[in-house]
């Protein structure tokens, strides 16, 4: 009995370490004085100061954020409408739609990125922030759909009927009953799609115009141009912190 307890404990910590040790090292070394990747020689915040002074960081950060926001709005709007229609009206082809929605999530991202690029080239659409948004949305709509639909299962149309019997018309029912009740699912999907878009590198890299960077793409250009540097560590830490922050806010909202 004791032995199994011990084993489970060790197992748990090994798992945690595998997940978080690399991230911890990266964050730690972002405060490293020397360029060494192996030895921590002294604490400094210089890397962060040079990061703050890099205007390109701010531009790409700004790009990442506004693109993610637009993607969230499009994905939630379309994903919500589809999920609601499927759950509420239970149409015949719903299993086919479920499968169609799952495929973009399971196929490798590099293939998604390539198909997008080919798609835009064939249609002669010049690459722009809009093509990035279309690319992200095409794969974030299914994500929003799946998250919202999971929350919707068991949603009882009696709530809407109850509102109707109390004198609410369709619009009042939508805004006072249906949407507020779906809000937890909508928020969960919004944060997930935001983080997916914000984190995305491959699709953005393939569909972006020259000279336009999001934060992960900027990180890559920095790496490929100058090799590994300490402010790259700092930049990574910055990106991670933003992602964690969003996940934390999402958790807090869901707890409410």
């Amino acid at each position, binding site marked *: 009995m004791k032995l199994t307890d011990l084993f489970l404990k060790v197992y748990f910590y090994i798992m945690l370490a595998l997940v978080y040790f690399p991230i911890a090292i990266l964050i730690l070394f972002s405060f490293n004085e020397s360029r060494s990747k192996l030895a921590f020689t002294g604490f400094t915040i210089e890397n962060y100061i040079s990061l703050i002074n890099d205007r390109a960081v701010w531009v790409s950060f700004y790009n990442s954020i506004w693109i993610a926001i637009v993607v969230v709005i499009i994905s939630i709007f379309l994903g919500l409408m589809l999920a609601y229609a499927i759950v509420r009206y239970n149409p015949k082809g719903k299993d086919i739609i479920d499968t169609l929605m799952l495929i973009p999530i399971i196929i490798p991202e590099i293939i998604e990125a390539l198909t997008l690029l080919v798609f835009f080239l064939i249609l002669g659409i010049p690459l722009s922030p809009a093509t990035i948004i279309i690319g992200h949305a095409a794969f974030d709509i299914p994500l929003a759909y799946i998250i919202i639909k999971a929350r919707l299962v068991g949603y009882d149309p009696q709530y809407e009927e109850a509102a109707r019997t109390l004198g*609410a018309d369709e619009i009042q029912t939508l805004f006072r009953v249906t949407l507020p*009740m779906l809000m937890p699912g909508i928020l969960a999907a919004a944060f997930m799609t935001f983080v997916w878009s914000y984190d995305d590198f491959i699709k953005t890299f393939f569909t972006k115009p020259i000279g336009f960077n999001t934060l992960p793409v900027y990180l890559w250009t920095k790496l490929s141009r100058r090799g590994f540097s300490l402010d790259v560590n700092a930049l990574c830490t910055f990106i991670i912190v933003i992602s964690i922050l969003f996940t934390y806010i999402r958790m807090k909202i869901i707890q409410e």
Partner: protein
Amino acid sequence: MTRYAVEIENVTKRFGKVVAVNNVTLRIKENEFFSLLGPSGCGKTTTLRIIAGLETPDTGVVRLRGVDVTNVPTHKRNIGMVFQHLALFPHMNVYDNIAFGLRMRHVPENEIKERVKRILEIVRLPGFESRRINQLSGGQQQRVALARALVIEPDVLLLDEPLGALDLKIRQHMMVELKRIQREVGTTFIYVTHDQNEAMVMSDRLAVMRNGVIQQVAPPHEIYMKPANMFVASFIGEAINFFEGVYKGNGEFETKEGVIFKVADDPQLINKKTVIAIRPERFQISDKPPEGIPNTIKGTIEITVFKGSSIEYRVKTPINDNVIVFVPNISPTMKIFNPGDTVYISWSVEAGVLLPYEEKIELETIPVRR
């Protein structure tokens, strides 16, 4: 001329090939507690939803207080409804739930406050305004759902099996409460249930439905004592006995064994295949042939069940090999028969109800849809 709270006339509703409601006509009086009773899938809920406007009838007319509302959408009919799963809004507290209908009617907020307070007193939940829905017990949620539907002072309150989810004890208590609240607010109640006990206890009148068709509309005692057909006779009450045969006229009924029983005359059933329906408590049971009682059969006790306030016998007779007899426990010295005893069971002319024979009485049907 009586003004009815609710009238539905020749209403029919189909779901695909299934006729859920078949040419139903009902007139429900003001302040009446009216129940729609029937097995699941009999069309009672669909009928209620048609009154609410949540379903549109294929044919027929719905009137509320004399006004044709057949084509009026739900939110413009002044109705209250308590749903099977209550459907209290989980994102609102008790106050906002009850205030919902009043806000839709643009009642000023200070009046809403007054009316919510008053209705919570009527349903015996004073001071519950700020509670959240998930903090309430099943019975309390029940009362909030009632309050929410009643506070708008509807022309009629529709209740769709609202007690189904409650424990037996709370259900029995809520039945009495529903009746009290109905008298206190003086609103017409239409109550849908498959539980005959609920319908019998609370209703002024009830309609028994089967396969979308109304079988009988009458007060509870009449439904019990003068059932319109074999279905109603079997569906209502704890048990019923049927003796099959042919009605010969002149108050004489002949079983297939050739035994003659006396019944009340019904000229419409002469020479037709019929049954005599007799409630188990209408029999007398004795160890010697009784005198002065027109109908008697000899039989053997198969099973004796002592139930406290009564004794239940299963008697094997040449005519029906499982006659159910309830004998009230009226005296500590009364004779209790044991299995194997030979007995005589007898009944008066009035105890038997002559009904047309039906091949199949299905007390359960497959629900059309939930």
